[in-house]
């Protein structure tokens, strides 16, 4: 299968400096047994992709809290395809758009942009961990040590 490992690239995209959720996710995902490559805040699309290629990551987790997420995330899937990692999991979460918009429409917009999972603000790390385990098919995997706890 394509997902050989449980390495995740985590970061906050664009000119966004919101660091708190990033630090919490880093802690919670690491505690759950994932190998977290945290590229921190103000990360470009290229930085996400380069980190994913270098570490042979199974997923890219994009955070955006400041409202420019729609502008910043556009074209990320295409760039992944160009870089030869077109099948990588793409998650996005946070305050992804400017203003209070119906989350279902935001989710649909981001899924059209090629994201596999889209999360509203205030999502607990447990939810993301559960989805990652499901999407990475950890239950069937026998070449990883498996998540803790």
């Amino acid at each position, binding site marked *: 299968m394509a997902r050989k490992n449980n390495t995740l690239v985590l970061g906050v995209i664009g000119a966004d400096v919101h660091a708190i959720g990033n630090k919490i996710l880093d802690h919670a995902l690491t505690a759950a047994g994932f190998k977290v490559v945290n590229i921190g805040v103000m990360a470009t699309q290229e930085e996400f992709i380069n980190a994913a290629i270098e570490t042979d990551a199974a997923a890219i987790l994009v955070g955006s809290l400041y409202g420019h997420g729609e502008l910043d995330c556009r074209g990320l899937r295409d760039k992944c395809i160009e870089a030869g990692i077109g099948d990588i999991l793409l998650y996005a979460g946070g305050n992804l758009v400017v*203003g209070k918009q119906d989350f279902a429409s935001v989710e649909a917009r981001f899924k059209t942009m090629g994201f596999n999972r889209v999360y509203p603000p205030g999502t607990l790390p447990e939810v993301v961990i559960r989805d990652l385990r499901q999407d990475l098919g950890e239950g069937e995997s026998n070449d990883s040590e498996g998540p803790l706890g």
Partner: protein
Amino acid sequence: MELVNKKLDLEQFWAERQEVLQSWPTGRGVDLEEAIAYHKQLPASKVMAKKLAQGKREGITFAQPRAGVALLHEHIELLRYLQDEGGADFLPTTIDSYTRQNRYKEAETGIEESRAAGRSMLNGFPAVNYGVDACRKVVEAVNVPVQVRHGTPDARLLAEITLAGGFTDFEGGGISYNIPYSKDMPLEKSIRYWQYVDRLVGYYEENGVSINREPFGPLTGTLVPPSISHAVAIIEALLAAEQGVMNLTLGYGQCGNLYQDVAAIRTLAELAEEYLNRFGYSGRQITTVFHQWMGGFPQDESKAFGVISWGAVTAALARVNKVIVKTPHEAMGIPTREANAAGLKATKQVLNMLKDQSLPLTSELQLEMEMIRKETRAILDKTLELGEGDWAVGAVRAFKAGVIDVPFAPSRHNLGKILPARDNQGAVRFLDFGQLPFDAEIRAFHQEKIAERGRKENRQPSFQMVIDDIYAIGKGMLVGRPR
């Protein structure tokens, strides 16, 4: 260029100005002498420092929203609505995040895409791209003082354009707009850039124009212990005063425990005046600003109004000069104008109802005030020692050594070793002191407060407690009890 806390030489300042104004085409629209004349014809009711002085005399707590959108006419409509419908005493112009990182080309794209989409695609007003004349249209469209609010480590051009554009208050500082807002910018650089901003404000002051300066109090906005934000605010006040700034509003972000928050506001101006006087900067107007809870909010709008109103109660009882208001859309990002006005109205209702009541100086309040004084002085005095008498040098070295350490900051120039957590009454204490220069008495106080909560919750204090606290208000509580 070596950083020292010394008023910039005027010749050097003029030379640097030429470079700053040439960094984007709209910089050519700045004529300083003409701008000074423009400010002089503004009525007192539009000048932040004058209205704050009046409020301070009369014991008024003013309310101010945050607001900014990509398109000029929409921005003006938004501000008018917040003034007329929301009753805002002061108005903001919140600057978008591309401009904050000096990415004016991306801001230009954001303006174009906003025009095409018919809605704002930027999270603020890109003032540099618009230039001086557009800023004046904003100032002229409303009846109250307008402040620039942003998060820009290098705000030299933004300051030139917005101050020439008639704004009478400029938020930020070399520490408070770097450590929480940047990843790589060295403190030596941002402090130096902000010396320029303060020198510019000082130049206006020398020419009879009052511009208020407001260091950004809440920093990362999440569980920041008062002594950390007080130390940063006072250092920025000292640095600004050296450059000739005469009017300062110092800020603090609500933590959530009433006694701690009131103690923080009451000690902030007192400590600032103590240090300003001690270092030769007397005669400055010092006012205070309280930010309603800056961390995660409940999604439910009624619950959000609960958080907003609790902030309003604290602001009123603390007798703060200004409160920055949150909105019921906070959990979802940037609010509609209606939601923004709703936050203002809820706040003003509470402020008006409490304006004749006060919180007595109880032993609990006194203890909180005394602890904040001791901790703040410990940090400031060690900073000055590290700087061998120079506050700018000291600030850089203090961050390197972790003598000042801001929790959850994105900057790699912040040590990031301290951990805050709430005690059993919800006051923010230190779970891990990192390298803070605290004595045994201060440490024992915090350790006992945290231990008390651990006993109550039957768990060892750990990072999980901190995570629970960060989510707590969003989930309807102040203290993050075990789930």
